[in-house]
């Protein structure tokens, strides 16, 4: 029949690689921030022992997994959810939505409001993780960009912010 064709849509390897890199770095930064920042530590303290969450992109990743170990320490637990008991799964519905989030065109709160995320798990835990992500983004990003990425930019002292930022960057890179 004229005007008919079957299409096998391609892939977006560069965007996928960018999101994978961001998830890897943010995952490690969350673990570092839980050691450095009181608010992040408090959020994780409120979650049950062994709590593990994943943030990924549908339908086939990339994904980051972060969880508390037996001692209550927050650890980045890699990208592969197979074999891991995950209490909270946060999935961005598609790669383009993840790109909007990780290029900071949309904050996590706005992305949630625009129905870009699917949450499988307890809502209070998801809210805690969104708050943690907001704090981590403030540390990782320059103020100009972070203001786009978070709901409300916190009023921290310059010394506190820079000191913690250095420690979180070091923790994320060096582990």
């Amino acid at each position, binding site marked *: 029949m004229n005007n008919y064709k*079957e*299409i096998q*849509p*391609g*892939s977006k390897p560069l965007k996928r690689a960018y999101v994978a890199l961001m998830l890897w770095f943010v995952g490690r930064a969350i673990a570092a921030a839980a050691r450095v920042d009181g608010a992040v530590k408090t959020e994780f303290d409120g979650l049950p022992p062994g709590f593990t969450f994943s943030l990924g992109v549908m*339908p086939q990743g990339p994904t980051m997994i972060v969880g508390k170990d037996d001692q209550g320490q927050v650890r980045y637990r890699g990208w592969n959810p197979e074999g891991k008991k995950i209490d909270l799964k946060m999935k961005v*519905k*598609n790669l383009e939505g993840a790109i909007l989030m990780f290029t900071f065109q949309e904050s996590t709160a706005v992305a949630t409001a625009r*129905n870009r995320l699917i949450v499988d798990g307890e809502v209070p835990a998801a809210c805690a993780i969104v708050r943690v992500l907001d704090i981590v983004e403030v540390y990782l990003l320059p103020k100009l960009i972070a203001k786009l990425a978070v709901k409300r930019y916190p009023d921290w002292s310059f010394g506190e912010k820079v000191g913690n930022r250095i420690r979180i960057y070091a923790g994320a890179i060096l582990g």
Partner: protein
Amino acid sequence: MLQKQSSYSFYSPTKVLSGNKALENLPVELDGMNAVKPFIMTTPGLSVRGMEKVMAAAFADSDLTIGVFAGVPPRPDLKLVRELYGLYHDNGYDAIIALGGGPVLDAAKALNIAVSGRPEDLESLTAGNPLTKKLRPLAAVLNLDLSGCEMTRYATLGPLSLTSSALIPDLMIIDPRTVPAEERNIVAAAALMSMTQAVEACLHPSRNPLTDAYAYGAARFIMENTLNVIRNSSDRKGRLALVNAAFFAQTASDNLAPGMVYELGMAISRSCQIKPGLIMGLLLPHFLLLEMKMETTARNDLYLFVGGPEAFAGTMAEVSSRKAVDRIVEVLLELQSLVPDFPRSIRDLGIKKEDLEGLVAPGSAAGVKGEYDPRDIRNILEKAWETRF
């Protein structure tokens, strides 16, 4: 006053996803409807404008295979649906995505009936037998070239008129990339058609709180965005608002009954090559003036819908309805100054005064389908014929 009745029904099964990158949600939404191989239908014109590629890109990284048929004609018929039926079944498709309004949705709804049961179900439905099988998922990706019944229970396929609430699409995507800038007369026609549906829903005797809410949303979006979109073709948010308005207006109208002005606009457009929305724009002020005289259906807050809350709050109740008519006429005049070849009167369409009687006669082929008082129809038509805006 908004209606306070508590006994009413309202039906809208459509999930709406509107905004930036909304199209990329299609794979996950289809997955939620147990569909993994969608069949996309569109027109050759939209395909040439690159919409087909935009759709394909939205499915990138999804692992889904899509079929694209870019040959929907302006008047799809049963022969086309039979051909597409074979294509759909032979290639194992399990959902339909209609990319574009008007004939694309008509063909998609008809195809959905055929592939969810048998092609004979189309004639059966036309004969008044209800559909017995649940239809496959149908998603609509609309632009501004609208027929007014895309998101409703109605579809037309050649001589067949199909009516079933099962035909209403399950999903509607409104994405800036698939709502391109259109010619001014197309935008004006879409806006005036939606405005007509909204206003008629707002004045309908069976209106209810939900039809009011939908009609209000439609009217506000249209009044706030139409002129901007026509003056500034790069107003992407405005274009999205107008497609949203079309959905609101169609849903409100679909839960009541098509109004007299809508029916007349459709009937007149069948005899000339003018978009029905432009004709409805010429008829609407006369309908409103007639409505103002009828105590049974009149409401004193039409200006809230048309003028917005601030203008409404600052207007004396006695002149509020008249202000609503004046505001609609103002917009109509402005549209006529902006849109080339916008008729000033239905007389400009080549309609003779004696032809009007054919539209008035109840049950006539050329006339309206609904049951209206012929005197009201005659009154509106004669005034619209005599008046040049």
